[in-house]
């Protein structure tokens, strides 16, 4: 059965003289390899040259600060619930008096850890977040020598006040609209799924 037009039927016929002395084939082969000297190379010299990523590339996470520099995260745990790899762990705490400039709402995440070895960079945490607090950026997670160092705490995840990261390209009108839906749609879907499982 012929599957493609390029397929060649194998035969055991006697080799011709030209095939027996190898030379024509060798010269042909060497011409082919030589022609590759001048071909365009697809190599990207990685650390110096970076190939252009998509605007919505899903890399390392960031916990955003609001306009005043207070943390947006209220430690609701929606991201941890949404996470299919169970990579997110957090601990909540109550905001004390005098900490209003640090945390936006009364509850905040005392610790917030993402295990970068577990994370599959699906972006569901970003989608689940009702407070626009967690985003994925185009930064690639660094290589490390130890497994422990892949668990990123707040020290690595929270955006630095003097180094704000622009995530407006991820907040397209559609995304914002989606997030504004009453009761949050993804939450409803999740509830529906839970109900189905109960019945």
């Amino acid at each position, binding site marked *: 059965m012929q599957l493609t037009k390029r397929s060649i039927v194998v035969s055991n016929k006697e080799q011709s003289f030209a095939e027996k002395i190898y030379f024509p084939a*060798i010269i042909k*082969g*060497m011409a*082919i*390899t*030589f022609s*590759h*000297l001048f*071909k365009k*190379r*697809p*190599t990207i*010299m990685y650390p110096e040259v970076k190939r252009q990523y998509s605007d919505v590339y899903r890399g390392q996470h960031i916990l955003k600060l609001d306009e005043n520099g207070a943390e947006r995260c209220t430690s609701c745990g929606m991201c941890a619930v949404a996470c299919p790899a169970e990579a997110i762990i957090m601990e909540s705490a109550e905001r004390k008096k005098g900490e209003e400039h640090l945390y936006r709402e009364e509850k905040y995440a005392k610790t917030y850890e993402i295990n970068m070895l577990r994370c599959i960079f699906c972006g569901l945490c970003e989608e689940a977040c009702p407070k626009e607090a967690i985003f994925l950026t185009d930064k690639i997670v660094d290589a490390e020598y130890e497994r422990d160092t892949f668990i990123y705490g707040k020290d690595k995840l929270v955006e630095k006040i003097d180094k704000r990261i622009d995530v407006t390209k991820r907040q397209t009108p559609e995304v914002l609209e989606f997030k504004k839906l009453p009761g949050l749609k993804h939450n409803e879907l999740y509830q529906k799924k839970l109900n189905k499982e109960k019945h």
Partner: protein
Amino acid sequence: MLEFIIYKSIICTIIFVVSLGIAAYSTWWERKFAGLLQDRWGPSRAGIWGLLQPLADGGKMLFKEEIIPNVSNKFLFVLAPALFIVTAIMAGVLIPWGPSVKIGETFYALQVSDINVGVIFLLGVTSIGVYGIMIGGWASNNKYSLLGAIRASAQMISYELAMGIALIALIITAGGTLSFSEIVAAQDKGVANIVWQPLGFIIFFICALAETNRAPFDLAECETELVGGYHTEYSAFKLGLFLFAEYINMFVSSAVMAGFYFGGYNFPFAHELYQAMGLQEGSWIISLIGFGAYFTKTLIFISVFMWIRWTIPRFRYDQLMNLGWKSLLPLSLLNLLITVVVEYFRGNINL
């Protein structure tokens, strides 16, 4: 006498350093060229264009853990790489790198030793080289190493014959001299030997590939079948010496081919060029230009070796033996016959 010793030691040092330097940078060029042929860039991290790569590789080889297997014959195990590299460098003493330089009243040849039986010395030394591989493979006490060593020695014996007969034809063409420098000098007056010995050159070239254990004849160290072949058990700098010696072998055989068949330091219209530049015989500029010509030819041959390696797949063992005994040996005898007839009619042989 003192003058002679100084002159010889300078030449020796230069040839030694250049051989090692070329061997080191052959590894770089091998990888770079392979990359270029395969639509990659090759080494590019260490220095500009990866030019410091040989140093990094050498450093790696030096500082890695040195393992000598318990069951090996330790004396021979250590001897083998040394023997291999010594013979590889020894073959380089014959090469006349350029026309003689005249300093004062004496002519100084750019050659370590002008042995009058140079061709025989060359064949002898290169065949001692295989002892390094054999001893190394046997002393490792490892099946794969032994198999690699057996393959290497069988291959050497098979191809040495055809090579020797091709060289006999060359010597007849060159006027019956066995001295390397005279063979090169003979091509100064007339044309390069390749014109009279095209078939001989092809045979010699194939045999040189086999003698240096280069692809497509690198059965002695084929990774897919024999792990690492004869150097499976070797590590650190002993392995480095083996690999290094192979590149020196390649350099020497490239130089030999360039000298025997392509005129060495001679090139077309050399005398016209020297006359136009107003240079006397024995001027160091002539030597420098001649050396440049010889060196360029050698480097081109090294590149061709590599080009072949990255094009042609490895021969099977029986194919290798078939090619050596059933094709190259009769062909070289035929070439000898043709050469004798041609030279008789050219009037170079008197019966």
